[in-house]
């Protein structure tokens, strides 16, 4: 049951990310829902799964954003590795902690990506990427974990 729920939730998040990407200009909201999947996998899975999923999610994110393959792959892999290393100390039961974890880690990841964009394309540091997206994504992540039933299904004890 937990596994099916997880897969279903991941699929929903992917579909929503695609939808958000498609209507990004209209909705004026910049979210990275794939990052939620990545953080969950990093916190709950082993090293190989973490690195592999970080690479895959990073490449997909690259496809959605700027279309320069490797930039988000690089930053997401570093963050995923760090999260995986500190996974024992991550407390997903605390929603505020989850929000801060998501926001800060995504902010760092996006900062790394932005440095690359600045070097390669000369793009200036984006407030949207460094501030709003981590905040919104953190809020969504924390919001998802509010119901205790979902925490249960996601093996968050």
């Amino acid at each position, binding site marked *: 049951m937990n596994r099916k729920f997880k897969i279903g939730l991941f699929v929903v998040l992917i579909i929503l990310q695609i939808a958000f990407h498609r209507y990004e200009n209209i909705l004026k909201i910049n979210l990275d829902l794939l990052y939620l999947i990545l953080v969950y996998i990093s916190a709950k899975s*082993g090293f190989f799964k973490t*690195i592999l999923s970080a690479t895959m999610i990073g490449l997909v994110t690259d496809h959605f954003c700027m279309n320069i*393959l*490797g*930039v988000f792959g*690089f930053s997401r*892999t570093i963050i995923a*590795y760090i999260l995986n290393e500190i996974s024992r100390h991550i407390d997903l039961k605390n929603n505020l902690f989850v929000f801060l974890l998501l926001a800060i880690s995504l902010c760092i990841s996006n900062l790394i990506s932005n440095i*690359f964009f600045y070097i*390669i394309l000369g793009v200036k540091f984006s407030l949207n990427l460094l501030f709003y997206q981590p905040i919104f994504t953190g809020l969504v992540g924390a919001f998802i974990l509010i119901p205790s039933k979902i925490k249960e299904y996601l093996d968050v004890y």
Partner: protein
Amino acid sequence: MYRREISNERKLSILVIVLFLHLVMVSTHVVLKNNRTLFQTIVAFIVSPFQVAFQKTIDFASHEFKHYLFFKGSFTKYLEIKKKYSRLKYENYILKRNLIENDFTQRVKGKFQDFIEADVIFIDPNFPLSSIMINKGSIDGIIKDMIVLNEEGELVGRIVDPITLVSSKIRLITSSIGGVGAYIEKNKLEGLLTGNNSAICSFKYLIVNKPVFKGDRIVTSGTDEIFPPYIPIGKVVETQKEYLTQKVYVKAFFTDKSIKQLIVIKNIKHE
């Protein structure tokens, strides 16, 4: 759930490899001033030395191979030319010999009707102007006392024993043995020419009343019944007057010329 423990070094190694692959992917989008991507530039930087080395190796090998082929071809051609040259040299020798023989034959034919051509095969090293051997013998029709001339038709000697099937001995007129009946062409002063085993022969029994001068030609007289008359022998080189006779020294014509080829006369034709 059992989770397989992975060492930190291994984790870091894998992480570095994955990050490196990401950076490689990123580098494909970084365009440098030379309008090439960073990836292309890095690859070119890494690959170009190998490419240059490979190209140089190929060029060197190709160059050496061409040289080898060229030298091999040249050597083969050289051998062919050398072979051809040897063949032509031999042909040239044969043709030259034929030419000389034909020329010799034609010249002799004008003077003598019936003769045998012969090559000298042996000269006595101790007495080179005494006797010689020729390569014609009784099988060619050589008989004793046939006279022998050089290619100019000047007297050389006569056939003496031994005569074998394929060789004969010639006693030269310069030999100390024997003599030739001769006279001075200008004043018909007759005497006996005897050899001294040298180029100078003695012309004896000449009466003193007829003068003899240096350069006078001596020819056979025919009175010895061996040598036919009018065959040139030599010329006077020195005269010594005595009480009743005069002693004349004669240099045989043939001593100044080659005696490689000779003719043996069967029936002489008088000019």
